[in-house]
């Protein structure tokens, strides 16, 4: 039997009074079977919940986080103290209304916020896993989430939602467990990682691997941290989350705290200084090895290859889908989302597809986008009403 406990692993980092959420540890008898052929046992899944589970356990909504997200979707982050990454989306009276729904947001397997990942100790050696941690896939993340639901006694969720890598998990959920979700909302997602996506990830990984402080993944044992490499990885990735138009509008060629060029390699431009800030603030809350593992999981994702075709992945699905894309997202562009919609049509699935016009790029799913909120509110509302949720 899984045990539910407050995670102690985060305590040294935690801001005073921060809600650490919950964690479930699955023992040796409940191993996580991985796509790589290896198993993980014991392992822990850390998660946050918002709202109340109704008596019929029919109002559960699962929220899947993106690459660098975590379970703190709608509560203060214990490390940074910042508000939750989907604070505008989840809460009382918000599109994912916690007065109506019980929201579960787990940290993915391989993550570094309480769910077992490469930074945790390998029980076999008593030392951090590092590179001995097994490679994981999006499907492995979803398997762990399904085990979490089992442990919570929730057979079926009303909806699984997520953006970017979260959207990949949503698609995998719909393919792996069609009977366990009433509806699915993949936002700014794709059914496969493209060559360009993989290329950007590889740049990030090589930045980490090239940092001498990385120490072949055993930086924890050496008391070092490849923070420079991880910061560069984050900087490169962050560019892909924004659109050219948004960068131009926000920064243009404006200089940072100066009137003339430094004629040196100082951060002259505001965009440089902004990226530096993004990089530096990231390393305080994210583990470099986790970054390697999770980016790899995204690279391996290709639903069509796993099932023969994308339509076959969803054949016979009774799940109701709402696909959302953003016009200026060039990382997970509308065309990729449309492929999913076409495949769902071919599988005769119930699908809606909304493309939202914005110039803010891939990260739009995290931003104040009224049309996104309206879409989620209406879709979830209609799904809930049809399911008889008060």
């Amino acid at each position, binding site marked *: 039997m899984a045990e539910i406990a407050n995670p102690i692993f985060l305590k040294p980092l935690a801001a005073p009074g921060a809600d650490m959420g919950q964690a479930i540890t699955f023992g040796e008898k409940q191993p996580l079977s991985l796509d790589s052929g290896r198993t993980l046992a014991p392992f822990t899944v850390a998660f946050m919940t918002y709202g109340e589970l109704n008596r019929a356990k029919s109002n559960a909504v699962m929220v899947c986080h993106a690459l660098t997200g975590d379970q703190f979707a709608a509560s203060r982050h214990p490390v940074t103290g910042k508000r939750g990454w989907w604070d505008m989306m989840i809460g009382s009276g918000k599109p994912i209304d916690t007065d109506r729904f019980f929201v579960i947001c787990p940290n993915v397997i391989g993550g570094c916020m309480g769910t077992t990942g490469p930074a945790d100790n390998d029980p076999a050696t008593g030392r951090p896993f590092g590179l001995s941690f097994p490679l994981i896939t999006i499907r492995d993340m979803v398997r762990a989430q399904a085990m979490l639901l089992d442990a919570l006694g929730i057979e079926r969720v009303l909806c699984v939602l997520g953006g970017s890598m979260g959207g990949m998990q949503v698609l995998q959920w719909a393919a792996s467990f069609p009977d366990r979700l009433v509806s699915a909302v993949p936002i700014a997602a794709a059914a496969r990682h493209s060559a360009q996506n993989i290329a950007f990830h590889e740049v990030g990984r090589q930045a980490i691997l090239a940092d001498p402080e990385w120490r072949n993944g055993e930086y924890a044992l050496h008391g070092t941290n490849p923070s420079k490499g991880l910061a560069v990885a984050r900087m490169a990735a962050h560019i892909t989350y924004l659109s050219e138009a948004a960068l131009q509008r926000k920064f243009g060629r404006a200089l940072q705290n100066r009137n003339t060029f430094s004629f040196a390699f100082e951060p002259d431009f505001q965009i440089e200084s902004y990226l530096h800030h993004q990089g530096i603030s990231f390393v305080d809350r994210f583990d470099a090895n986790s970054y390697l593992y999770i980016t790899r999981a995204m690279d391996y994702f290709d639903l069509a290859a796993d099932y023969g075709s994308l339509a076959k992945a969803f054949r016979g699905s009774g799940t109701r889908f709402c696909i959302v894309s953003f016009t200026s997202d060039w990382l997970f562009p509308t065309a990729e989302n449309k492929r999913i919609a076409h*495949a769902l*049509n*071919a599988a005769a699935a*119930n699908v*809606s597809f909304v493309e939202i016009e914005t110039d803010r790029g891939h990260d739009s799913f995290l931003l104040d986008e009224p049309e996104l909120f309206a879409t989620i509110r209406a879709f979830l509302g209609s799904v809930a009403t049809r399911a008889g949720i008060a």
Partner: protein
Amino acid sequence: MIPRTRGMRPDLAAIASLIAPGARVLDVGCGEGDLLEHLVIEKQVDGRGIELSQQNVNACVGRGLSVVQGDADTDLADYPSSVFDVVILSQTIQATRSPRSVLQHLLRIGGKTIVSFPNFGHWRIRFALLLEGRMPRTAALGYHWYETPNIHLCTITDFAQLVHENGARIESAFALSQKGRTRRMATDAWGPNLFAQGAIFVLTKS
């Protein structure tokens, strides 16, 4: 049902009355979802829509409807055969690039296909061309020739011909008057082709 259909376009109200409760319905070119919403609420259909305008699609999803952005000319090919009880194409066929192929897909996808369109054989249209020598502009077809999206207009006789050529059967057909009244019509008679503002055809595979 009557209060609900008040305010709905007359051809849509007529189409709605032809659909059985609980049917699986695909509305191709569903606009802002007026018909679809009516069918979902009043007839508990399993309703889906395809709509070209993204703005309209977002409005539909905002009403809780299942609608995808798509083009009847290209995207119907994705759908498997015979998955819907009824497929609706209202006031759209004249704006498609390839009406014949669209019609073939509709017949393939649906058990029953309902098509409504403006009748280009209406006497006002004939007169406009005959007496004024101008491209006709009417209440139903209000565009100038150079900006109209209606690139494949047809008469009731023309459409009946296309149906027969594609081996489909006309289960029933209705003439739409300018005032929005519908009455059953014979598709091979000269009267409706001259006096009906629009037409609704209910087709099945023969």
